[in-house]
């Protein structure tokens, strides 16, 4: 029997899922498969008008039914216009699922209630089957409510806040997972079944391991296993590819790996014990240990499985001496506490994926879901012995990254190797389980913090000892960040790593920041209580950062803060408000470039950067449009292709403060050239359409390149590897969080959040706000739900789907207000710095302080689960 899909009838197969049928047979790739278990809703389509998860729906169930996918909404639904207008997305990978479900909800709501906005709870109920890892829920909420109220029934005037939003709400945006069609072979990674073992032999079964022209038989390649030792269950060992996914899975089952088992060490306590098996016994092995730090890991001593300390001190001996003496005299103004955090997975909704193709001239084309096309070029060229010009890397749309798609990940190596042997394009797309096991995580930490104040309430000493639990990797920088907070009091900050036979971490959005804030900001609140002082007053005294000082002044007048409840709160539901301060380093990419070319009377902006959801495509478009004085829609941005002029990788909160100024400079140059040709063009401000048209016609084919100008007074560091430099000035943030604690069932419900950011001038306000709102969502996940769990005997990751790894949904997050303090970076071209990380640092800490305020009990361990809360509040 046939199915009617978007108005076209066609047969349905008797096997596979509806999602596979829509994507692979019908080419309707707007429907995404992100979790494969019905938990995330990215694959939602309308069946007979009802939202249904197509990843679980057998394809044959479509027979005789009417199906509407995101493509079938034709971009004409009010919800689609509303998503664009309210910037209800970041990376866009979950967007089609949200749009389809929201369209059905909006239609039903309006027919039942008329054109009135539903409350947030009604929208949260309707969209509770959807997850957005970027956390664009504020925009989604606003969009759906406005669409229900009938505010988006006609096409809007003016440009959308995010220039590529129309592509994302219609399913036209093609992500790496959508590419390859039926020509590409499917690659599957074969992973270690042992926590710790020497790999003796990898046997291919019947698969081919050498190139052999035209052969369609499955192929296998070994993957690099450092030291020939696997160190966690799930570590990549080999990869296979075959013309279809089913054949590839079967070929993978044939691969035989012979292991010589080594004794595993799973828990950090076990790893510390004398006589415990050692993961990296030799200096050579220690030299190759993977790091989840963003910068190269400085050398540190090893003892067994413990690496460290890496020490950052300011009069460290004085700090330690003062703290010791305070402890001996039981000084009530000594706060010494221990805090722990759980392992947080990046788990971007687009999994790691690569489509690799070797061209006849020996060059390599890689379509990669990456946050840095340029770094992949450099690393791939080195890996395959090619010149950088022989490697082309494209990342048109990237479905989230958060730090985990930062270079030559396993999918890139496997796809490239497999394509070489297969003689065909090969794509490797990690499953959600692989993504959660080996796709990167922010390691758990255990942090001891000690603060000492004197009678006048001044900070006299600080000590932080933090231990990172990054599985087989190292690179913790939690304690070190304590150097950037609360003035110049003496302090000793020590970071340790404990290695175990569990998967490695990866840099994640403000590495080290959230775990330090979780400990330090709660310790500061504790000190405020000891001093009998308001937490805000104490911070205003201790904190020398002028941006946060400005934010504190605003907080002091906030109704959310001023009107917070005081005194003991009886009853089942208790409201509390807490705040937390945060800081981050200002980083930039001095080599950032933007090329502007006049094509067909319009301006095309090109750069080898990529948009992971932060909105750099829109920022470049906004900057160039404004500086040129052009009307909306005259500037077209092409990024995500390594062939363009140098662009920055999306890490270190540096994309906007690097690409923005380069785009501005390019626009100024172009404007200068255009004025030479058409003198009527004004030097600044908007340009008459006919003048601009005349100028651009005269300049057809012209190309200029803008560079990232240097900051006044220069940088703090020279440009390091990866085009990274540290600039002058620290960014600042303050979060104020309100929670309601259900003391009967142990549930924390964040209700309202105020996020204040001091990052200088903001480029594109709505998209900046979106990132800050998303960081609140991720921070709430970190605070309350997210936790990678493992089997204590083997280290096997157990929470390997999106039911057991719990992301916050639309109903779990607070109503969020974002405030920008836009001064303090006038020395930077564009006067603004990045905000992606600083806005993520203090969220969980603010939740912690709010829970304490509500209940009188201080949470020490993340996440603040019901079981922990019940122990604490009873």
């Amino acid at each position: 029997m046939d199915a009617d899909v978007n108005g076209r009838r066609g047969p349905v197969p008797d096997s596979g899922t509806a999602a596979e049928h829509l994507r692979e047979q019908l080419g309707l790739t707007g429907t995404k498969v992100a979790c494969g278990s019905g938990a995330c809703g990215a694959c939602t389509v309308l069946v007979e008008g009802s939202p249904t998860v197509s990843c679980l729906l057998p394809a044959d169930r479509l027979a005789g039914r009417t199906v509407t996918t995101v493509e079938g909404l034709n971009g004409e639904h009010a919800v689609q216009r509303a998503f664009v207008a309210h910037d209800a997305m970041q990376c866009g990978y979950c967007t089609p699922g949200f749009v389809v479900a929201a369209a059905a909800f909006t239609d039903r709501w309006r027919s039942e209630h008329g054109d009135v906005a539903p409350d947030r709870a009604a929208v949260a109920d309707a969209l509770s089957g959807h997850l957005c890892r970027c956390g664009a829920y504020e925009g989604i909420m606003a969009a759906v409510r406005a669409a229900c109220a009938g505010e988006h029934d006609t096409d809007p005037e003016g440009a959308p806040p995010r220039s590529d939003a129309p592509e994302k709400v219609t399913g036209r945006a093609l992500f790496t997972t959508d590419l390859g069609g039926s020509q590409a072979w499917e690659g599957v990674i074969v992973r270690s079944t042992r926590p710790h073992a020497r790999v003796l032999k990898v046997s291919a079964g019947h698969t081919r391991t050498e190139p052999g022209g035209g052969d369609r038989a499955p192929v296998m390649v070994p993957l690099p296993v450092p030291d020939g030792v696997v160190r966690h269950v799930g570590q990549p060992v080999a990869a296979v590819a075959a013309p279809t996914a089913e054949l590839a899975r079967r070929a993978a089952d044939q691969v035989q790996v012979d292991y010589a088992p080594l004794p595993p060490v799973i828990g950090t306590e076990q790893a510390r014990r004398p006589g415990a098996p050692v993961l990296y016994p030799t200096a050579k092995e220690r030299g190759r240990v993977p790091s989840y730090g963003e910068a190269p890991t400085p050398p540190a001593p090893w003892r067994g499985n413990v690496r460290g300390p890496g020490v950052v001190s300011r009069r460290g001996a004085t700090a330690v001496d003062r703290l010791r003496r305070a402890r001996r005299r039981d000084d009530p103004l000594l706060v010494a506490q221990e805090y722990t955090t759980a392992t947080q997975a990046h788990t971007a909704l687009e999994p790691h994926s690569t489509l690799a193709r070797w061209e006849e001239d020996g060059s390599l084309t890689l379509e990669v879901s990456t946050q840095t096309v340029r770094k992949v070029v450099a690393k791939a060229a080195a890996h395959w012995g090619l010149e950088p010009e022989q490697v082309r890397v494209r990342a048109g749309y990237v479905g989230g990254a958060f730090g985990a798609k930062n270079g030559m990940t396993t999918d890139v190596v496997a796809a490239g190797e497999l394509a070489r042997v297969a003689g065909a394009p090969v794509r490797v797309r990690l499953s959600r389980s692989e993504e959660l096991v080996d796709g990167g995580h922010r390691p758990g930490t255990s942090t001891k913090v000690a603060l000492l104040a004197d009678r006048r309430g001044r900070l006299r000493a600080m000590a932080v000892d933090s231990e990172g639990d990054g599985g087989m990797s190292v690179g913790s920088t939690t304690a070190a960040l304590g150097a950037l907070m609360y003035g110049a009091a003496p302090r000793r900050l020590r970071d340790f790593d404990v290695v175990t036979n569990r998967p490695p971490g990866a840099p994640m959005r403000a590495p080290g920041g959230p775990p330090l804030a979780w400990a330090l900001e709660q310790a500061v609140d504790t000190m405020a209580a000891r001093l009998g002082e308001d937490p805000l007053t104490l911070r205003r005294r201790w904190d020398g950062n002028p941006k946060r000082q400005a934010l504190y002044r605003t907080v002091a007048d906030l109704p959310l803060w001023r009107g917070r409840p005081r005194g003991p709160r009886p009853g089942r539901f208790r409201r509390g408000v807490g705040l937390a301060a945060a800081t981050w380093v200002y980083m930039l990419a001095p080599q950032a470039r933007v090329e502007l070319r006049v094509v067909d009377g319009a301006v095309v902006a090109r750069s080898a950067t990529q948009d992971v959801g932060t909105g750099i495509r829109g920022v470049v478009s906004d900057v160039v449009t404004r500086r040129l004085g052009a009307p909306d829609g005259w500037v077209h941005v092409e990024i995500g292709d390594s062939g363009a002029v140098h662009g920055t990788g999306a890490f270190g909160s540096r994309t906007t403060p690097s690409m923005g100024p380069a785009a501005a400079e390019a626009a100024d140059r172009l404007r200068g050239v255009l004025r030479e040709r058409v003198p009527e063009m004004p030097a600044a401000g908007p340009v008459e359409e006919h003048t601009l048209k005349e100028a651009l016609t005269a300049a057809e084919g012209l190309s200029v390149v803008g560079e990232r100008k240097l900051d006044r007074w220069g940088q703090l560091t020279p440009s390091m590897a990866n085009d990274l430099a540290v600039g002058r000035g620290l960014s600042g943030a303050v979060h104020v969080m309100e929670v309601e604690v259900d003391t009967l069932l142990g549930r924390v419900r964040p209700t309202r959040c105020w996020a204040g950011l001091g990052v200088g001038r903001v480029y594109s306000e709505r998209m900046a706000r979106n990132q800050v709102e998303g960081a609140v969502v991720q921070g709430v996940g970190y605070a309350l739900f997210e936790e990678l769990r493992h089997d204590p005997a083997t280290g096997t990751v157990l929470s390997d789907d999106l039911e057991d790894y719990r992301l916050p949904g639309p109903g779990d997050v607070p109503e969020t207000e974002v405030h920008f303090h836009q001064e303090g970076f006038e020395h930077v071209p564009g006067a603004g710095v990045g905000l992606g990380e600083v806005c993520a640092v203090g969220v969980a800490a603010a939740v912690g302080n709010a829970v304490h305020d509500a209940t009188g009990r201080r949470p020490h361990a993340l996440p603040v689960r019901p079981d922990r809360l019940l122990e604490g509040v009873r």
Partner: protein
Amino acid sequence: MILRPSDVEEAVSLLGEGARARAGNTGAASALAAGADVVDLTGVAGLRGVRPGPEGSVQVGAATTVAELAQAPGLARSHPALVRTAAALATPEVRESATVGGNLLQRNRCAYLRDPAFSCLQDGGRGCPARSGDHPRGVVVDSGGCVEPHPSSLAVALLAQEATVEVASPGGRRSVDAGELYASGEGAGDHVLGPDEVVVSVHLPGPAAGERVGHLRAAARSRAEWPLVEAVVRLGVSGGVVGHARVAVGAVARVPLRLPQVEQALVGARPGQALDERAERALEGVRSWCAPLPQTGYKVALLGATVRGALEEALADPGR
């Protein structure tokens, strides 16, 4: 191959030949048993729909979706405990596909069971790796075997609704109390039906006189979450006094449980007032039922708290 029987008897006979049943396909079972022929139950005549019966009773076909159940006209008035339970489970999209029968007979969600690298009591192995391993969401009424709680929310509600379930076997049809689908939960598997047996329908007796209900799920996230503890309460109130009480809980044991001692203590309670001493004692007594695992000690208190919350809701319920 997909087989589409037209009636229940044909379905049962196909299942007897080794095919595997498929309804909403939203559960873990479909992933666990790939390869075999599939008997699609959603097209079987008479298996779908909510039909009113005599004296306020209702018959629910096993292939009725959870969404249809949650939205069935009139059911929210006559059987609110079941409707509220149905409307709160999983997500709107999953409820759209998931069926009543599938929910009752679903496989448990243990991560060790889903990982083929582990062998366990549920798949023919000899031990439970979760017992010695990681089990923070495990049972708190430990019976010594598998430690994964029964996942069905509807089963909890059906216990509270005093429902019976019609089962079709090669030998014919029989009607059993909802709890008998699971017996003691000590064996392998998540229910006691054979591979050639299916649930045909659920029979819900009419509402109690003056029915009041409470339903509560304890969970960290507000929605789309497997509960840590779930409680369903039905009270029959006449003359301002509770005359009839049913209390059922889920996610605490290998099977959904009724709490008869709490039910008995509620008879005679007065809605609108706080729990009396007898009810308090009975709630306290629930603790003695519990035999927690190393990581589920918190569920002892949470079970009591969830039942208390559901009771308070029911006692405050104005009725319909």
